[in-house]
C-alpha cells in the first residue's frame, strides 16, 4: 500500500478552488517532488495531507490512515518541516532537539541517545549549547530536518525546506534527504528550485489547483521535448 494517497482531494475557499480533485500516489522510499508556482495550490494540498486543513471533498490517506478522520493517528507517524524556520531561535540547539523529542512522545533516554546522534551527524556537538539563532541558515535547516526526523517517521513532508539557502548548503541538505530515502523513508518535498526537481524520483507540477504533469524528471523532459525542468515549468505556465 502506498504511504501517501490523494483521491479527488479538493479544497475550496468560498468561490475559489485552491486544490481541484488532486489524485496522486507516492511509493514507499520515494522522493516525490511537489512543484508549482506560488499560489498553484501545493501548500494547500500539503496542509490537507498533513491534517492541518480539512478537505472540502475527497480523501487523503497517509500511512494507510484517513487523515481527516484520524488526524492524530497520522500526526504521530509523519514528520513535517515548514517553509518558515521551524526551530525556536531563543532555545539552544540541544534544547530544540529535546523539545521536539518531547512533543513526539519520546522517552527521556531515547531523547538523550537521539540528541547525541543528531549532534554527531550534523557535526554540531561543539555548538550544542549555542542558541539556534546563531547558526547559519543552512545549518538551521539541517537541524530542523533532523528534529522532524527525530521520532523516526516513515513519511516526511518538507515544505520548501531549502528556500533562501545557498546552493552548497542546499546540496548538503539534499544529501540528508537521500540518506533518509535510502533508509526507506518516504519524502514529499515542495520546492521552487527547478534543479532540485531533478533530484526527485518523480515530480508533479501543479497549476491552478490541478496536476498539470506527473512523472519522472527524465520522462517529463522527453515528453515535453526539452532539456531542463525549468523549460517544462515555463511551458506549463504558458499553456
Amino acid at each position: 500500500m502506498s504511504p501517501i494517497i490523494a483521491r479527488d482531494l479538493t479544497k475550496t475557499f468560498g468561490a475559489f478552488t485552491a486544490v481541484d480533485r488532486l489524485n496522486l500516489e507516492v511509493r514507499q522510499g520515494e522522493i516525490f517532488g511537489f512543484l508549482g508556482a506560488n499560489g498553484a495550490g501545493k501548500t494547500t494540498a500539503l496542509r490537507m495531507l498533513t491534517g492541518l486543513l480539512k478537505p472540502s471533498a475527497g480523501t487523503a490517506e497517509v500511512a494507510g490512515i484517513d487523515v481527516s478522520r484520524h488526524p492524530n493517528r497520522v500526526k504521530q507517524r509523519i514528520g513535517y518541516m515548514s517553509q518558515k524556520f521551524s526551530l525556536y531561535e531563543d532555545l539552544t540547539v540541544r534544547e530544540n532537539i529535546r523539545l521536539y523529542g518531547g512533543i513526539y512522545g519520546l522517552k527521556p533516554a531515547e531523547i538523550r541517545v537521539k540528541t547525541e546522534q543528531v549532534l554527531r551527524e550534523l557535526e554540531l556537538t561543539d555548538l550544542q549549547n549555542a542558541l539556534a539563532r546563531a547558526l547559519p541558515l543552512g545549518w538551521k535547516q539541517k537541524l530542523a530536518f533532523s528534529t522532524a526526523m527525530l521520532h523516526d517517521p516513515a513519511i516526511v513532508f518538507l515544505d520548501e525546506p531549502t528556500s533562501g539557502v545557498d546552493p552548497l548548503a542546499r546540496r548538503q541538505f539534499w544529501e540528508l534527504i537521500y540518506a533518509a530515502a535510502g533508509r526507506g523513508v518516504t519524502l514529499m518535498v515542495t520546492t521552487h528550485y527547478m534543479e532540485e526537481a531533478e533530484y526527485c524520483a518523480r515530480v508533479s507540477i501543479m497549476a491552478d489547483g490541478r496536476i498539470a504533469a506527473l512523472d519522472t524528471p527524465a520522462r517529463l523532459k522527453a515528453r515535453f521535448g526539452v532539456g531542463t525542468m525549468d523549460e517544462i515549468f515555463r511551458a506549463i505556465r504558458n499553456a
Partner: protein
Amino acid sequence: MFPFLKKEFLHILRDRRTLMILFGMPVAQVLLFGFVLNNEIKDAPIAVLDPAGDYASVTLTNKLVASGYFHIETRLGDAGAIEPEFRKGRIRMALVFPPDFGRALAHEGYATVQLIGDAGDPNTANALINYAQAIIADYQTAYNQGTGAPVGITASTRMQYNPEQKAVFNFVPGVMTMILMLIAAMMTSITLAREKELGTMEVLLVSPLRPIQILLGKTIPYLLLSMLNAVIVVLLGIFVFGMPMRGSVALLAAECFLYMFVSLALGIFISTRAKDQMTAMFFSALGLLMPTMLLSGFIFPRESMPWVLQKIGMAIPATWFNPIIKGIMIKGVGLEALATQTMVLGGMAVFLLALSLKNFKDRL
C-alpha cells in the same frame, strides 16, 4: 520631495490600522474621557436610618434626594444593618439621624446627623460626603430663615473601612486588576501570535499535540507568572502602603486565579484573531487596556457614566474583579457577598474559553 511626500500619504491611506489610530483614537478618546472623566457623581445609592421620622428629618432626606446626587437604595431599622449593606456593596453612603432629630432642633437649637461613607473608594466617599454636607448646610440656612432663634446642624462624618482615606486602598486593587489583565491577556495573545508569525505554530499543529495541550502549554507559564505578580502587588500594598488584609487569603488567591483565567482566555481569543504580534499587541492595548482603565470603575466612578458606558463596563472582567478584591482586602467579606461577581467572572471564563477553543480549532 513631492513624490516622496505622496508616497508617505499613500502608505497612511492604505494602512487601515494607521488610519484607525490617526482618526479613530482621538475621537474615541475625546468622547470617552469627556463622558468618563467626570468626577461628579450622580444618583449614588445610599441607606437612610431615620428613627426620628419627623418633619425635619424627612424634609432633609427629601432635599438630599432632590439634589440628584443620591437615591435611597434602602431604609434601615437599626444601626447594625448598615455595615452589611456596605459589605454587599449596595450603598455608597449611609445617612443616620438621631431618634430626636426634629425635637432637638426645635427645642435645643442643635442636632447632629451622621454621614458614613464607604471609604474603600476614598475619592467617591469624599465627594459624596461633601455634597451631603453642602446640602445640610443649605437646609440649615433655609431653616433659620423661617424661625427666630438660629439652629445649628452638625454633620459628623465617618469613613468606614478607611478612616485615614488612604488612596492606596483604591490604587493597589486597581493596579492589581490592571496588571493581572495586562500580563495574562497581552502576554498570552502576543506569545501565541508570535508562534503564528514565526511559523512554529504550524509545526506544533502538525505534531501529535492536541489544540487544548498547545493552549494549556502556552498559558500555564503566564498563569503562574501572573499569580506571582499578584502576590508581589498584594505584599507591597500591605507592607509598604499599609493596605489591610481583612478577608481570607485563600479566597483572594482563588478569585485572582479565576480572574486570570478570564484574562488568559481573552488573550487566546485575541490571538486567534490576530495574525502577528503587532496586531495582537494593538488589540490588547486598545481593546482591553483602555476600557479596563476607563470603564471598570476603579479610576472613575461608574455611577457618573452615561448609561451606554455603564453597560459596556459590565462586559469588562475588571468591573467585576475590582469589587471582589476590594471587598476581600478592605471589607473582609466572604464569598457570600461576592457571589454575583464571582459567578459573572466564572461565566465569562467558560464562555471565552469555549469561544477561543472553537476559534483555535477552526483556524486549522
